[in-house]
């Protein structure tokens, strides 16, 4: 019925909108037709033509009113009114060009910053998976007692797939950080990002390949049988120049031939946040890509490398599936108690996965978001204040409109349209600001060996957010002034331009403006506090001491699996590499590490039980971050050994197992004894004993501003790894070592590629200087913008108040008040407001600082210094903002003031 109704009426509405003039003409013609007949009738009844005409018009009861009534019937007056209002607003704004420009810039900064931060937040948290019905895709994760989540092993994945009914399909994917790719035999392999996926991966996700096919379900069933690969869209474009004949072609991955069976669609950018896989292989080919050669991927239930995801069956809720998987986890624990102690399992939505506690970035961004919104809020209060002042000068206009019969609602709408026009302009400026900011984020060159994608972009979602912010700010800064100025009572409004002189209304209006001032001052204090905390937190970290020497250091990354080295051969290679590098001219020292400090790589975690430490009843072991290094590492990296010794060549695979711990670790577990000579047992109370032979200085490992953390080093010989980083300390420019190093490697194996060579300073600069630098710049800009906006707003409001009271001040001077009295009068009020704003801002600032310190930085406690600087600075600035107009007021000659209107 409704649809049918629209079918009939929509063309009429459209006609009224598009052919308004013609509709008007027809209206006239129709009524004229009626009048003509009526007049004829009158004349026929014996009236004079003139009298007949008058009678006819009388019968109509006002021709124009009838027309207006009929126009209203068309239900499009809101649109035509809007167009009228908008063009009126534009004319009006054009007249006060300076003010308009100021407001647009103000709003643009606020909106643009918020939109830019939203793009970060969207990229990290909100943007849905690039698959159909992304909301039904959940992640299944193992959970441990300390609430951290981890992956599943292949066996566990099979059990989950067979043992659950909540899903339309359960998929598994294992990202591979370094896969050697070559387009054909004989070409040097390049390191690429790949992903091992279950055969049902594309089918369950609902991803249709743009070329060829996805995997068949049976292609992951037999280990090593189906050497097939699906290419990622970007990789296909860049590596194969979008060649459509690629399907069926052979490529070499880690030295083995794979047949290209398909190309994923452009929309499918992968399920990972920061990396887009270049190609996908079936899980059954895992042995070719294994990263943990000690483990058997297909058999070991604790070789947990797979991210398991699933598509919920229609009608099944997340809690339902959660209880199902919890039961399954209990079964695992029963059947394999040694591998699953205290291990549960849970189902996480995309949002939960993205905001889990151990992913750090979103916390930063959330704080940025709060700050950006604070900037926007300051901007809005600023604009609201300006509009309020302006509305005041329009009191007479509005009173006239009201007196002529304009409805209050209609007037509010007119004023809101004006702020909407302003906000739209601000939104345009905001889009430009957001564009610039996002470009700025992307100037960050991440020195990773593999391309890392920053998921920040100015896409439709961000523009939509931008639009929403504009409309919201239009309402936020327009509604209060509109409500207030249309409340003016007519008599005083018509009588005087100074509606405020009517005391009752005046007080209420002043109250509103006072709230604005207080809000601005407290908001900008909040912003300044935040930027001080962030800036100081980062700067602390950027400055030394880091605990190691970062210059004159060259990094070279190796992965001998690319040329199919087995474990023994890999160990032999690294041994020889380090030995020969050490004797290369220009090299002072050389060492190997799995992850250099602050090198962006994820550190492994070591599970252990320290001897002589009372283990809590509910714990099986402790975990700490660890690195695998060789005997040259501590010297090459410049990490000092405080007690005991570092590793030696004699700490070989068959020797007594040893470890070096950092000072934080030593103090944590053996507070009253020397850590050297103590033992830790791996995994559990009954695990292999490892002797602590040295205590190294605590340095920063993952982030330059991190809190001191426990850390363990294990010797490479006793804890073999495939991918290692060679550190070379040079006497001169470290880059001059690149060629000699290449010679060394070539002498060992002509085919072995060096995945990456880079000076350590490059890495360091990114992770400790430029990365945080983006944050610092962002927050500092927000702080400064917030302050400038707040000050200009404050100045404007005080100045306006003064000018409004010019006559009163004149009277006061005329009856004997001195300039000092006037200053006191005008400034006193401003200072009270600033004081109140400062107090509120301090309370919020302290709370915010607590939160930020707790989440982000190691700086504990309250940062007195920040407040010692910020509060007086803010007070001084606001005093100036009140002083200048106050002084001008004091100088006014009484005669001039009294005449002032």
């Amino acid at each position, binding site marked *: 019925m409704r649809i049918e109704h629209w079918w009939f009426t929509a063309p*009429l509405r459209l006609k009224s909108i598009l052919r308004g003039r013609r509709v008007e003409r027809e209206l006239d*013609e129709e009524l004229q*037709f*009626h009048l003509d007949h*009526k007049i004829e009738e009158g004349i026929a009844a014996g009236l004079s033509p003139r009298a007949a005409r008058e009678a006819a018009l009388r*019968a*109509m*009861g006002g021709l124009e009113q009838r027309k207006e009534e009929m126009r209203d019937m068309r239900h499009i007056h809101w649109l035509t009114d809007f167009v009228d209002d908008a063009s009126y607003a534009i004319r009006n704004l054009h007249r006060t060009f300076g003010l308009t420009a100021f407001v647009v810039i103000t709003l643009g900064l606020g909106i643009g910053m918020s939109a830019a931060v939203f793009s970060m937040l969207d990229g990290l948290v909100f943007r849905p998976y690039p698959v159909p019905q992304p909301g039904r895709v959940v992640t299944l994760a193992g959970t441990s007692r300390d609430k951290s989540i981890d992956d599943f092993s292949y066996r566990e994945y099979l059990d989950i797939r067979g043992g659950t009914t909540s899903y339309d399909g359960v998929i598994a994917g294992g990202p591979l950080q370094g896969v050697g790719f070559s387009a054909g035999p004989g070409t040097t392999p390049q390191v690429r990002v790949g992903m091992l996926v279950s055969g049902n991966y594309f089918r369950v996700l609902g991803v249709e390949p743009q070329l060829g096919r996805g995997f068949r379900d049976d292609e992951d069933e037999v280990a090593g049988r189906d050497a097939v690969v699906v290419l990622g869209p970007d990789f296909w474009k860049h590596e194969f120049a979008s060649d459509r004949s690629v399907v069926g072609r052979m490529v070499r991955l880690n030295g083995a031939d794979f047949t290209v069976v398909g190309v994923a669609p452009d929309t499918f950018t992968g399920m990972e946040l920061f990396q887009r896989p270049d190609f996908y292989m079936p899980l059954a080919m895992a042995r070719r890509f294994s990263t943990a050669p000690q483990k058997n991927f297909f058999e070991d239930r604790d070789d947990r490398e797979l991210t398991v995801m699933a598509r919920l069956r229609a009608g099944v809720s997340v809690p339902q599936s959660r209880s199902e998987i919890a039961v399954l986890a209990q079964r695992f624990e029963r059947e394999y108690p040694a591998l699953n102690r205290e291990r549960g399992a849970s189902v996480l939505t995309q949002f939960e996965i993205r905001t889990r506690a151990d992913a750090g970035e979103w916390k930063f961004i959330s704080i940025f978001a709060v700050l950006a919104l604070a900037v926007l809020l300051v901007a809005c209060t600023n604009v609201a204040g300006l509009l309020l002042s302006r509305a005041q000068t329009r009191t007479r206009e509005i009173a006239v409109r009201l007196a002529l019969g304009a409805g209050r609602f209609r007037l509010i709408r007119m004023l809101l349209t004006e702020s909407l026009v302003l906000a739209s302009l601000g939104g345009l400026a905001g889009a430009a600001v957001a564009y610039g900011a996002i470009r700025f984020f992307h100037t960050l060159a991440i020195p990773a060996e593999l391309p890392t994608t920053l998921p920040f972009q100015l896409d439709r979602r961000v523009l939509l957010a931008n639009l929403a912010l504009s409309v919201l700010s239009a309402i936020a800064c327009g509604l209060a002034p509109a409500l207030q100025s249309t409340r003016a009572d007519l008599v005083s409004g018509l009588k005087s331009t100074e509606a405020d002189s009517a005391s009752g209304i005046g007080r209420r209006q002043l109250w509103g403006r006072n709230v604005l001032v207080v809000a601005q001052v407290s908001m900008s204090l909040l912003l300044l506090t935040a930027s001080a905390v962030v800036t100081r937190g980062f700067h602390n970290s950027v400055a030394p001491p880091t605990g190691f020497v970062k210059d004159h250091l060259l990094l070279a990354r190796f992965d001998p699996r690319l040329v199919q080295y087995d474990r023994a051969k890999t160990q032999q290679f690294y041994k020889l590499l380090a030995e020969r590098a050490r004797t290369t001219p220009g090299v002072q020292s050389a060492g190997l590490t799995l992850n250099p400090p602050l090198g962006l790589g994820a550190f492994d975690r070591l599970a252990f039980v320290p001897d002589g430490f009372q283990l809590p009843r509910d714990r099986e072991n402790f975990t700490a971050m660890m690195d695998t290094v060789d005997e040259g590492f501590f010297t090459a990296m410049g990490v000092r050994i405080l007690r005991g010794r570092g590793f030696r060549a004699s700490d070989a695979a068959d020797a007594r197992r040893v470890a070096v711990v950092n000072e934080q670790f030593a103090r944590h577990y053996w507070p009253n004894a020397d850590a050297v000579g103590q033992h830790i047992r791996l995994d559990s109370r009954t695990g292999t004993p490892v002797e602590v032979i040295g205590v190294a200085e605590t340095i920063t490992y993952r982030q330059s501003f991190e809190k001191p953390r426990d850390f363990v080093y294990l010797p490479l010989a006793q804890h073999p790894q495939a991918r290692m980083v060679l550190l070379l300390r040079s006497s001169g420019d470290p880059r001059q070592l690149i060629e000699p190093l290449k010679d060394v490697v070539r002498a060992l194996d002509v085919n072995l590629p060096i995945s990456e060579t880079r000076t350590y300073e490059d890495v360091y600069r990114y992770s400790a200087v430029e990365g945080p630098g983006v944050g610092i710049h962002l927050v500092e800009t927000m702080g400064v913008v917030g302050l400038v906006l707040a000050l200009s707003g404050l100045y404007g409001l005080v100045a306006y108040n003064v000018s409004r009271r010019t006559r009163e001040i004149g009277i006061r001077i005329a009856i004997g008040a001195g300039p000092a009295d006037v200053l006191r009068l005008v400034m006193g009020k401003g200072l009270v407001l600033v004081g109140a704003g400062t107090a509120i801002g301090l309370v919020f600032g302290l709370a915010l600082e607590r939160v930020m310190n707790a989440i982000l930085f190691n700086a504990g406690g309250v940062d007195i210094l920040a407040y010692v600087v910020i509060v007086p600075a803010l007070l001084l600035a606001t005093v100036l903002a009140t002083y200048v107009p106050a002084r001008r007021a004091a100088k006014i000659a009484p005669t001039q003031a009294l005449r002032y209107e």
Partner: protein
Amino acid sequence: MSKPNDLVQGTLDLLLLKILALEPLHGWAISLRLKSISGDVLQVTDGSLYPALHKLEQEGWITAEWKQTENNRRAKFYSLTRLGRKQLQSEAANWQRLSAAISHVVQLSET
């Protein structure tokens, strides 16, 4: 809005729909027809007739078409739509129920 005083609220719509159900007419003819069939009892001022027609048109119950009159002038002829026919049925039924009920009450009080 201008409302005819002596018409029960909403009945003007019913009258117009009914008249147009018989044949398409222009505004002037509708006013004449109203007067003649109700024998001057139902006074609809010219002022309220056209807004009412417009409303019916905007609701999609009647549709308008420009045609030549018998003395060769262009006039806007209104006719009932399918939707309008349905509306007429339901309004007429309503009216009958209502008027039956009212006359029932009125007769009660007289006896």
